[in-house]
């Protein structure tokens, strides 16, 4: 979307986190967070705040700065601390119009709860999985929400609001190394709330195949044997050869109507 004058001065905050490359496991900019920054940059290039809670020395933060963000705000906190508490404190003092986040973090618990908890604490509406912000007029934003199977839904929401950005949003621009190294980090201290729920968790690398809750329904050995050896029944469909082309087309059309794919 080309930035228009109505959104240029809008205060937008994009929350960023440290991502993890799925193959190498190396730290990187998280994909959805980068899209949140991209969306923020395209809406309000002059008044976008990029905010991170955590370790300010983390090099991956610079990758966000390389997208053309002059400054990155960091609320210094240990990795184990609860980010929502620090964020709420911060936003109570400087409240923006829109807060953008990713849907799920790529490290940690990645429960995707941060935007919801934040919205609840602030008393703001929360729009999940947005693909784009179409327009903002008179304090009401028109937002496109991404639905499964590439579908979109229009949502109207009044400012201020929290939104999580889906992977269907416009792709993040490339990160340039020079600007990334030059960017300033403004580090603030914040109230730290220890997250004591996660203290007793143990983490292990994910097993390839999670164990299913298997319920054995077969009661006798014969039934179990049958279930294990049964071949899937090859259902051959209806074949139309001799009918006229008109009838064939009608049959296809009826099936399409039945499956509700023609709207």
């Amino acid at each position, binding site marked *: 979307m080309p930035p228009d004058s109505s959104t240029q001065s809008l205060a937008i905050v994009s929350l960023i986190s440290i991502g993890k490359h799925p193959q190498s496991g190396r730290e990187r900019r998280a994909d959805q967070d980068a899209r949140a920054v991209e969306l923020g940059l395209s809406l309000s290039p002059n008044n976008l705040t990029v905010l991170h809670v955590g370790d300010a020395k983390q090099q991956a933060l610079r990758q966000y700065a390389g997208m053309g963000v002059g400054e990155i705000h960091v609320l210094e906190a240990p990795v184990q601390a609860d980010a929502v508490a620090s964020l709420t404190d911060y936003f109570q003092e400087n409240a923006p119009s829109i807060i953008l986040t990713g849907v799920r973090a790529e490290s940690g618990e990645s429960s995707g709860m941060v935007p919801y908890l934040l919205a609840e604490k602030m008393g703001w509406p929360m729009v999940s999985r947005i693909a784009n912000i179409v327009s903002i007029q008179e304090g009401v934003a028109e937002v496109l929400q991404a639905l499964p199977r590439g579908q979109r839904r229009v949502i109207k929401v009044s400012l201020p609001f929290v939104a999580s950005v889906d992977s269907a949003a416009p792709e993040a621009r490339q990160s340039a190394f020079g600007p990334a190294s030059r960017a300033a980090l403004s580090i603030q201290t914040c109230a730290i709330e220890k997250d004591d729920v996660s203290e007793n968790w143990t983490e292990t690398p994910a097993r390839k195949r999670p164990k299913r*809750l298997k319920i054995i329904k077969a009661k006798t050995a014969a039934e179990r044997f049958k279930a294990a050896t049964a071949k899937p029944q090859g259902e051959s469909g209806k074949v139309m050869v001799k009918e006229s082309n008109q009838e064939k*087309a009608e049959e296809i059309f009826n099936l399409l109507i039945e499956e509700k794919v023609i709207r």
Partner: protein
Amino acid sequence: MDTQTTISRGAGGSVDITRKTPRVLLLAEECADQIDETRHEALAIALDSVGQITRQIHDGGRVEVDPNAIPLAEAEFILSAGNGIHNWDQFHLVAKALGATEGASRVAVDDGFMPRFRQVGATGTWVTARVYIAVGISGAVQHMQGIGQCDKVIAINTDAGCDMVKRAALSTIGDSEAILEHLLVLVHNYKEQQAIEEDNQDAA
């Protein structure tokens, strides 16, 4: 998972977290098989109080999406073309009328009729469409792999013995151009009728 501990998956699916079982859980898809054999009933419960909710989000409904803008792997309804297509203009017209995402077999892509990202199959995209219409595709093994997850396959082909016909829920044997022509007319009639009905509803 049991009553004491739960294993959940975190960090984008790369870490298993063992933790105490909370009171509310969201289950991953791989957690268990679907329920069959038993029937369940949903009952309405009366709440003592319902919190006041002010509506802040207005749902504007679905928007029309250009079917060709949907990624092929996600598309719900695909009209796919193979070597048996000779009238490409007609094919595009039908896809547009049906509102289907366009796909193609390897041959059609190699011959330059369709772009590479439209290719369905092992070397192209693995599709998950609910309804897949294969026009003039006989069904090479690689192509059948690509449509493995499709629910309803409709084949239009001249060869009644080909693999696609064996896989399809509905097969029509004959000239694809003639069948698509009739289909096009049917869709146009249907849409016109719908438009008239909508007008009537608006008037009423």
